[in-house]
């Protein structure tokens, strides 16, 4: 498996090298102020991609524990971003602190431990019941339902949903033992490639916006062009998965569709909170959640489809 993973990561590095070259050429040709700003943002994104790919490559090659820890850290930052721009009150402090200090580590510990049944209900059942109690004890009833719902949403999206990506390492697929990292690679590669290709197709051909008020950058041309291209790449990656080419294509399509839905829904959440980006942590991209929004929807969908149809 390590050889396959090395080949794949080499392929990603090659793609990024091409992107860096293209960005360098574009920067030399950009003449207007607007074009220069666009290319500068593009190049910042490409540089951040190098860093993100390097971090994930190291985690993948070192193994399961580091990969799970890396996703735990991702969830931590995503949760921090979500709650930072969400209007909670001082009375919610206990629920917020418990979310960070108890539920983030516990959720990822359950995955590392392979305790699949509890990992699937920890946040939807136990956190769902416990957190409102902590807030209610404080006795502040103003806006109570909305405050509780915000914290629950934050935990579901930033921790529960994202944790389904490393949870792919738990699945037992007959004839595919010891190679689950390739499933994780498949998911992340298709989601992120779909985001990038939708951005590229949208910038080149985009005319008709999908939901201008929610996310002005999303266009039908970008969605169809980028989505189909990412689906095709997913089908072409069938040889690293336990799937046939047709199954790989269908699963890639499910990842693309749910990833797009995640981007749209999180954009609506973000704008309802009055922000344009979730944060400023990754140069050119915004925050961690700007990069993980599609993963948060695609990971559970992919996990459950694979679990239902392929796992023992």
């Amino acid at each position, binding site marked *: 498996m390590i050889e396959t993973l090395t080949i794949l990561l080499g392929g990603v590095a090659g793609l990024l090298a091409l992107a860096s070259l293209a960005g360098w050429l574009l920067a030399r040709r950009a003449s207007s102020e607007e074009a220069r700003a666009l290319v500068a943002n593009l190049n910042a994104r490409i540089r951040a991609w190098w860093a993100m790919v390097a971090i994930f490559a190291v985690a993948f090659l070192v193994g399961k524990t580091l990969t799970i820890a890396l996703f735990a850290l991702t969830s*931590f930052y995503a*949760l*921090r*971003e979500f*709650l*930072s721009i969400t209007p*909670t*009150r*001082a009375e*919610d*402090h*206990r629920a*917020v*602190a418990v979310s*960070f*200090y108890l539920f983030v580590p516990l959720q990822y510990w359950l995955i590392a431990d392979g305790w699949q049944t509890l990992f699937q209900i920890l946040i939807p059942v136990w956190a769902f019941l416990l957190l409102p109690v902590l807030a209610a004890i404080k006795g502040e009833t103003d806006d109570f339902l909305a405050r509780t719902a915000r914290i629950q949403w934050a935990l579901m999206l930033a921790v529960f949903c994202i944790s389904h990506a490393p949870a792919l390492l738990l699945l037992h697929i007959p004839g595919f033992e010891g190679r689950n990292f390739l499933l994780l690679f498949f998911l992340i590669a298709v989601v992120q490639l779909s985001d990038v290709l939708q951005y590229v197709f949208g910038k080149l051909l985009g005319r008709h916006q999908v939901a201008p008020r929610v996310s002005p950058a999303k266009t039908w041309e970008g969605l169809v062009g980028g989505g189909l291209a990412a689906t095709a790449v997913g089908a072409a990656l069938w040889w690293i998965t336990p799937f046939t080419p047709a199954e790989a294509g269908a699963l890639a399509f499910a990842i693309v569709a749910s990833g797009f839905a995640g981007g749209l829904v999180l954009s609506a959440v973000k704008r309802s909170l009055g922000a344009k980006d979730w*944060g400023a942590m990754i140069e050119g991209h915004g925050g961690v959640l700007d990069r993980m929004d599609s993963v948060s929807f695609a990971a559970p969908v992919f996990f459950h489809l694979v679990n239902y149809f392929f796992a023992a």
Partner: protein
Amino acid sequence: MSGGPIARLTGAVLVGATRLLVGGHARWQGCAPEPRQRIYFANHASHLDTVILWSALPPSLRRTTHPVAARDYWDRDPLRRHVARDVLGAVLVERRARRDPLGPCRAALAAGGSLILFPEGTRCGGAEPGAFKGGLHHLAREFPVVELVPVHLDNLSRAFPKGAILPAPIVCSATFGAPLGFDPAEPKHAFLERARSAVCALGRRIAT
């Protein structure tokens, strides 16, 4: 900062933990992080305020900027004493002193240092800072060359409200405004109210 190796290590841990938990980055809106003698005055919402404002400054300025902090809180155990004295280089004042509480502040300014001051005195739970105490006015009058820089600390009452044991990781930031002018003819209460609204205005600019 006295700057021994242990103090430098504690300082690095403190800044690292601050960045991990609450970010605490600086936004220099009305002035630049220059090595001028200044009094940074800010709203006071949590015990983290001192550390966050200090961490938001670039390392070169931290060495010459002394937070003014309450002795009854920072002198309580050896760890806090070490952080306050050796790492932050804090000026510890008596809140309920019979003697002049501003003495140590004057000494720090006279030695050429800058100060971090929370003119509300105690932490206020509300969204807007409470009334400012007179110390800022006295120091501004006695040291007219020192720049008076308003700072607004954002989100801290949510990250670490009164009575909480642990800070929650919610991103906080420190916004630095334009220096405030000082006119000896202006009445004390008018100056203090102007200083307070300068801090509030920085907070409102973030909210929009």
